[in-house]
């Protein structure tokens, strides 16, 4: 039987049982919509995290004092604290793969009504490279700022939006109330800052509690002055950030830094932990794969249910068309013609459902984008990628499930089928 004739006959037969076949098509529509709006956003969610991590500075590693496991059980403090002198020592090694290094010390939090999310951090000028900060106005902190009489400050996007209002000039004075820590003492002081630069908004760093947009960045020495700490080299750091010259050298840089710190008597995973964006990506991958396994189970169930609807309908159809099968066989139809006929019927039902479902789910995702930020990352490309996987899966499942009734139809003996009442 010619392909076009078989398809035409299959289409005609589908139109014979509109109501019943509509339910099968509906099952496929729902399957594709579910696939589209579950798997698509999961892929979008991953893409959102990956792009956030990439935007956060792809080539950086952080040395965290103590034992910290991203996505792991938690944090335990070190037995020996990392100090500024350790950052200086790493810098003195002149490792060519390291392009920027800066310790970070958080010296206080700003009081602005009930909101204390803004903070003052001290670091070196390399922080600009590490954090990929872009200057909106003025300049970033430089080496010369460490001896300045005034406290020169660079304001993160949220800070200058909140504190400067309409007046967004640099070289203006800004008085802020700050809760500072001095060893174990906490006190509130008023600090007069000289604003030397304003930063552009940048994406938050995934996994970091402090948002760089909420930072007031001072030169490390000046930040320590605020807490009356003069022996800069002995100051305990919150982190040391290091940028590698490219992503592939992150592991090498990490290994070198571990060697240097161990040389200085620190124990890895006790006194310090090294975390890179690579680790963060691995965590995203790990979370994604676990979530993905769960989604796959749901998806498999959805496929099985929709394919089962084909199986049930086709079993009924074969039984109903017993005599018709006998007639076609008497007219000369081969067993393969009968097989193709019922497979085409199942496939056409599936494809109609897939087509309508795809269009509906694309529109649904567009509507959901208004409400959920991570769905904004479900681009047309991700949708197409998702469908390039789920649609062949649905079609394959349909063929597998339709094979049984179709095969049964081929086994019908024409002489018996023609006697069938």
């Amino acid at each position: 039987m010619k392909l076009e004739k078989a398809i035409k006959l299959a289409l005609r037969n589908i139109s014979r049982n509109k109501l019943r076949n509509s339910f099968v098509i509906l099952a496929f529509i729902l399957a594709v919509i579910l696939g589209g709006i579950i798997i698509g956003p999961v892929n979008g969610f991953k893409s959102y995290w990956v792009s956030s991590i990439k935007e956060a500075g792809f080539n950086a590693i952080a040395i965290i004092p103590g034992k910290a496991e991203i996505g792991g059980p938690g944090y335990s403090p070190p037995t020996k604290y990392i100090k500024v002198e350790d950052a200086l020592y790493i810098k003195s090694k002149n490792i060519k793969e390291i392009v920027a290094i800066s310790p970070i010390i958080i010296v206080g939090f700003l009081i602005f009504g009930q909101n204390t999310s803004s903070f003052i951090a001290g670091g070196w000028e390399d922080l600009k490279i590490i954090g990929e900060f872009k200057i909106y106005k003025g300049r970033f902190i430089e080496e010369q700022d460490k001896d300045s009489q005034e406290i020169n400050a660079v304001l993160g996007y949220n800070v200058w939006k909140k504190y400067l209002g309409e007046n967004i000039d640099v070289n203006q004075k800004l008085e802020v109330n700050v809760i500072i820590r001095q060893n174990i003492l906490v006190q509130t002081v008023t600090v007069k800052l000289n604003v030397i630069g304003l930063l552009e908004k940048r994406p938050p760093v995934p996994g970091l509690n402090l948002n760089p947009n909420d930072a007031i960045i001072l030169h490390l020495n000046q930040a320590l002055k605020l807490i009356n700490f003069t022996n800069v080299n002995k100051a305990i750091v919150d982190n040391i950030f290091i940028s590698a010259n490219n992503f592939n050298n992150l592991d090498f840089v990490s290994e070198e830094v571990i060697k240097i710190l161990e040389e200085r008597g620190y124990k890895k995973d006790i006194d310090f932990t090294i975390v890179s964006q690579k680790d963060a990506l691995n965590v995203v991958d790990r979370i994604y794969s676990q979530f993905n396994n769960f989604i796959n189970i749901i998806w498999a169930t959805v496929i099985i249910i929709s394919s089962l609807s084909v199986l049930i309908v086709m079993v009924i159809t074969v039984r109903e068309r017993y005599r018709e099968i006998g007639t076609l066989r008497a007219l000369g139809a081969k067993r393969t013609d009968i097989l193709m006929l019922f497979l085409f019927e199942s496939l056409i039902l599936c494809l109609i459902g897939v087509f309508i479902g795809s269009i509906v789910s694309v529109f649904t995702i567009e509507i959901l984008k208004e409400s959920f930020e991570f769905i904004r990352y479900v681009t047309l490309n991700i949708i197409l990628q998702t469908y390039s996987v789920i649609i062949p899966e649905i079609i394959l499942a349909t063929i597998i499930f339709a094979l049984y009734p179709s095969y049964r139809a081929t086994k019908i003996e024409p002489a018996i089928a023609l006697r069938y009442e």
Partner: protein
Amino acid sequence: MVIVRLHDVSKYYRVGFSVVKALENINLEIKENEFISIVGPSGSGKSTLLNMIGCLDKPTKGKVFFKGLDIALLSDRELSKFRAYNIGFIFQTFNLIPSLTALENVEISSSFSNKVKNPRERALKLLDLVGLKERALHRPSQLSGGEQQRVAIARALMNDPEIILADEPTGNLDSKTAEEIINLFLELKKMGKTIVLVTHNISLTENSDRIIYLKDGRIENEVRKSN
């Protein structure tokens, strides 16, 4: 020339623990352009015999030769092709495909053979022959019983078969329509076709060349008519 020859054909069916002898030692020759009627009471084995002649079933014992070819030697696939090229079937319940129009029902036979060059044109010609050209685009549900049977006859003729096998073709029709159908068969005979008609209505057999009486799966009597 002999088209079909049945040599000592028996067909047994197992029903539960017992064996039903549907046909027993049938010997029969059907010649070209013959109009044969097979008559007998219900359960006498008429349809089983027709299935043997039409290569829809294989005998338990004996052989069926079609133009000298032993059909037992053909695979299922070859048998399908053989039926498409050589045999036209007409059934009591017409067996048209409900979703197809009269024209498409006639055309569908050509899907299983490459015998017909222009199926649409031939199907229309055949519908014209059976007087249904005007009803070509009607579905079976829009046709009367007689019209449906005429579509089935056109369908049986589509591949220009050697032999036409009709199993109680007038069983579901009124006597006037039945007569029209029999007249149509006579027309086909005039066109050179071989016709085997199964019926339990003796009155329909008067124009046959030969009448074969079946009883309990055996040929009880055979009457040749000289026209």
